[in-house]
């Protein structure tokens, strides 16, 4: 179940909590890095591979929620498990809405923490895969010519070749050539796959006339 390659970052201003939580995670086989403050964590480069952040809500300086906002401003996916001293409902709602994986109330058991961390690592793994995929699609999109991009947009919005030819003022045969190049460059086997990729890359379909 555990992924020895995964890294858990623990951020807490309390030294003994930091030490004991680190111990629990290490005993479960995780690579653990501990930070006494949000600033220290932000200044540290992240290791490659799946990871998650165990974050105390109440910290002097940079609170847990502020750190969450700073992390999501970066593009890489990050999975956060919050730990809070008090079961503070408004704070936990905000944290979960902002994408936290879990919200534990101190004192928590080792099992609760490890469960949450496993889930967070799993989420991060899939998030990273998705992130990787969409990055690949974006890279492929960069290789299209402007005309090809125009044809792609028309195709994913479900228009026929004849309609596309009329809209763009080119011959239907030319549309077919562009379309074949788009399919090849995007490595799509079918129009359905092309549509999925376009959605993933956020290519908005132009409004139908």
């Amino acid at each position, binding site marked *: 179940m555990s992924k020895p390659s995964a890294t858990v970052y623990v951020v807490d201003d309390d030294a003994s909590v930091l030490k004991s939580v680190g111990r*629990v995670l290490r005993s479960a086989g995780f690579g653990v890095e501990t930070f006494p403050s949000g600033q220290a964590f932000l200044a540290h480069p992240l290791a490659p591979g799946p990871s998650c952040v165990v974050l105390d809500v*109440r910290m002097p300086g940079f609170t847990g929620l502020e750190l969450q906002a700073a992390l999501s401003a970066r593009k890489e996916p990050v999975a956060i498990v919050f730990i809070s001293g008090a079961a503070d409902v408004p704070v936990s709602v905000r944290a979960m809405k902002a994408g936290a994986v879990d919200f534990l109330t101190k004192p928590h058991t080792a099992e609760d923490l490890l469960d949450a961390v496993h889930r967070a690592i799993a989420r991060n793994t899939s998030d990273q895969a998705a992130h990787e995929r969409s990055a690949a699609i974006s890279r492929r999109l960069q290789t299209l010519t402007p005309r090809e991009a125009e044809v792609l947009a028309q195709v994913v919005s479900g228009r026929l070749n004849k309609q596309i030819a009329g809209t763009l003022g080119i011959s239907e045969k030319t549309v077919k050539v562009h379309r074949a190049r788009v399919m090849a460059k995007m490595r799509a086997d079918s129009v359905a796959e092309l549509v999925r990729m376009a959605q993933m890359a956020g290519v908005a379909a132009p409004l139908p006339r």
Partner: protein
Amino acid sequence: MAVGAPPAALADSAGRQNVLLLYGESRVLPAVLDLDEAIRTRFAQAGVEARFFTEYLDRSWASDPHYLGHLRAFLRSKYREHDLNVIVALGPLGLRFALDSRSDLFHRAPIVFAAVTPAGAVRLEPGTPVTGVWMTTDAALTVAAARQLQPGARRLVVVGGAAPQDRIFTEDIRRDLARSQDTLETSYLEGLPLEAVREALASLPPDTIVLLGSILRDGNGRTYSGRESLRILAPASRAPLYGLSETGIGHGIVGGRLINFRDQGVHTADLVLRVLRGEPAQRIAPVSSPNTFVFDAQEIARWGLAERDLPAGSVVLNRAPTIWTAYRWRLLAAAAVIAAEGALIVALLAHRRRRRRAEAALTERLAFETLVSDLSSTLVELRAPELAIGIAHGLRRVAEHLRVERGSIIELTPLDEDTRITHVWTAPGVPPLPSSVDPRQFAWVLGRLRSGERYCFSRLDELPAEANGDREAFARLGVRSGVGVPLAAGGRLIGAFTLATIRREQAWPTELLSRIEFVGGVFATAMSRRRDEMELQALRRDLTHVGRVTSMGELAASIAHELNQPLTAILSNAQVAYRLIERGEADAPELKEILADIVADDRRAGDVIRRLRAFVKKDETLRLPLDINAVVQDVVALVRGDATVRNLSVATGLTFALPPVLGDRVQLQQVILNLVMNGLDAMREAADRALLISTEVDVGGAVCVVVSDHGSGIPEGDLRRIFEPFHTTKPQGMGMGLAIARSLVESHGGRLWAENRKEGGARFTFTLPPAGAEAA
């Protein structure tokens, strides 16, 4: 009044009997004045006229060896023609002289003595017609009380003069102290020149208890009244002075278990009246008049002693003047007008016997009115906890004045529950009221009182048929006549005041009943005030608790956080250790480290809990010498977490080696906590987010705690109002915090005030008097 006719042979032509008041000492001594006044007043109250002869032997002031011989010759010629019905011998030297000269000078008249200690210098021969009132010098009890007040006291100094009476007092003290097992290092300054005594007292270390006997004459032969020597010694002494008698109160002694010469006089007069009625003096057992713990509030304050250390039942006199003092003087002025009227009437009606009865009645009425005004002013000045004693005192005085054998105060409500006898006084020689008396036996009496009506009966068979149960109950208690009036306050029934006679049947004329109701009103006021103040005190305690709990609420989140940290660490560490052991991966050094961490975190959690407990405890105050810096640090430890979360800082600037203050740690923590929380709240929007708590000693020697913030300050007009209850500027505030804080500081004898800092923000300062300056 009901006094038996005197033997005709011994009365003068006007029917008056001859009483010789024979004082051992000078007439100007306060004790002598007290005795004399009490005896004469008592006679007036009893409606008995006597012809008083007075002799003051001046034994301690006169030093000529031939003095006594001359005196005898003089007295022999003076009393040759006067039969004496009784000799009242006052003081041991007065008694000794009376015993020696009774046959020779005073026609073998019976003797009633007072102000003599049983262990003292006089031997009573059996068969001699002598009785009297024993006096006690409670030196050991006074020293015991002094040790409670001055727990750090190391030595005891007893001071006494060179006059014979002085020596007798010093011997009494020595004897009494020898009986107690006190371990104080004790020395006697006896028979020295007053100047030397003064210098000795001026160089005493403050951890000394000084017990002042009597100094009527010093080692240089100079003579003083007790107060004159006190006036010289008291200002010079560097340690608190305790005394033997109430005459020293208000003149420089802290107090003690003190002789009350007025009481002695009252008891003496009662014995004299019995002898005059024909009872043989040798058949009357001497009575004793117990002393009372009496203390002077201003001396207690002056020496930095604490009233809470006084023995239970202490009477505290000489409090700072209150608004009621003015009232008392009005009452006394009214009494003086009546007295003047009385004197005028006396002058006009002097010759007529019939009128003399009016004079006696008037004097008696005056005595009663003086008693009532005195009683009401005394009760009015007492604080709630002392009122119970004050009422008991008053009950006795009223019952004695009205010459009944039993008096009681009952707490009563219109409903059936809650009937409680709170005070009973029974005359000496009468069986006390059994504690098992069930007020419900008196159904008819209680019914009348509950419906707001009085009852009275001159004989048991005057009680109506429906009161058969009551009659039997009264008969079992030996009551022969009785009266009871309901007590109401604010239109509400609160109790009853009852009187009963045991030895005789007594009629209750309307005039007497209205007097009893008048006195009842005085008691009712005191009782309702006592109840109100008790309730107020309970409320104050609750408010203090509320204040503490409110601060707690504000702090709860921060404390939960503080507690959770170690708990989280402990749980995690324990579970890791468990897993390691289960998987067989545990190695001893690692486990040892984990366990050490668990222990450290557990300690940390314990500290948090201890601090928490100290704050929520709802207890009575406990005043102990403490270091205010430690209290400040307690509070800082408690708020630092909260401040950090709010991005504020709390700094301290403590002056070390401050004198200790006498205080309740929890209450002082609460005061500082309140000021600090206010300061933190005030800096919510401030740029400079530092709060400073500093301690120092001011020019007057008081310990100061100063809490300064960088908030927006306090509007100038609000600097005073913020201390008023329910004045608040915070949306969630109750407005009680500063009001409670101020009342707590003031209850410690300090002051709390607010000012705005020139550089912005507010500064709260409170002072506390140092504990150790004199007492420790």
